[in-house]
């Protein structure tokens, strides 16, 4: 039984949409970061599915770059979160509306 690539793409689209919804609705800044990770994962799934569909490796190589960028983003972003928590005593994105305190 062979699975059509469109199944993977539909799943990827659903996950990306849920990531967008989470990005808009979550109020905790760490949860907002996690929804970005969810969107990156959805894109990775689409990359691998396309890579298999076209029998080319470029998509899989791009998945590595996406993972590297996601790791770097998580490191810098969580450092910003720690600084935000130290300076403002809140992780709510709606209470953090000034660049400088």
């Amino acid at each position, binding site marked *: 039984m062979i699975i*059509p690539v469109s199944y993977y793409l539909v799943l990827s689209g*659903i996950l990306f949409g849920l990531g*967008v919804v989470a990005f808009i609705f979550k*109020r905790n800044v760490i949860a907002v970061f*996690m929804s970005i990770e*969810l969107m990156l994962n959805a894109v990775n799934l689409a990359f691998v599915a396309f890579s298999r569909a076209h029998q080319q490796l470029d998509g899989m190589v791009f998945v590595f770059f996406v993972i590297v960028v996601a790791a*770097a983003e998580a*490191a810098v972003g969580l450092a910003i979160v720690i600084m935000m*928590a130290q300076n403002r005593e809140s992780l709510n994105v709606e209470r953090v509306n000034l660049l400088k305190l």
Partner: protein
Amino acid sequence: MMGPLIVFFACAVLAVAGAILLILAREPIHSALSLILVMVALAILYLLLGAEFISAVQIIVYAGAVMVLFVFVIMLLNFGVEERTDFSKLAKYVGVPLGFFLLIEVARWLYESRIGSVVASGAGTVTVAASTRDLSAELFRQYLFNFEATSILILVAILGALVLARKSQ
């Protein structure tokens, strides 16, 4: 013969359920754990697609390193349940229609394009073209410059994290 299809739908349901749990969870730690669920389900889907190395990297780097960093920061800060505030009307009245528009556009594109009829070769019909050896050959020949550039990116990220998280004097 239905095996791969059953595995696909099980993992797809698991991933979507994890994503919905991420949205509904009140505690950030519950969101993090459901995101780990999504990542493990996606790793199994990569195995199904015949991308073994990416599956391993997904488990080790994403579900391992990145999510441990998230859980570590959540436990370190320990702010508890996220409060419901409603300052931004923009999110509700602009964000939701835009999100649905995006989904509809993606669905329409998938429906109209020819890619839907192309079959992704699953596990069992794997060609040698996606072996780890070929992947590394591609990465270190055609994409060597990009590879080196990402190492600089990681270096800058380390420096940035150190500078940001340092106690300000």
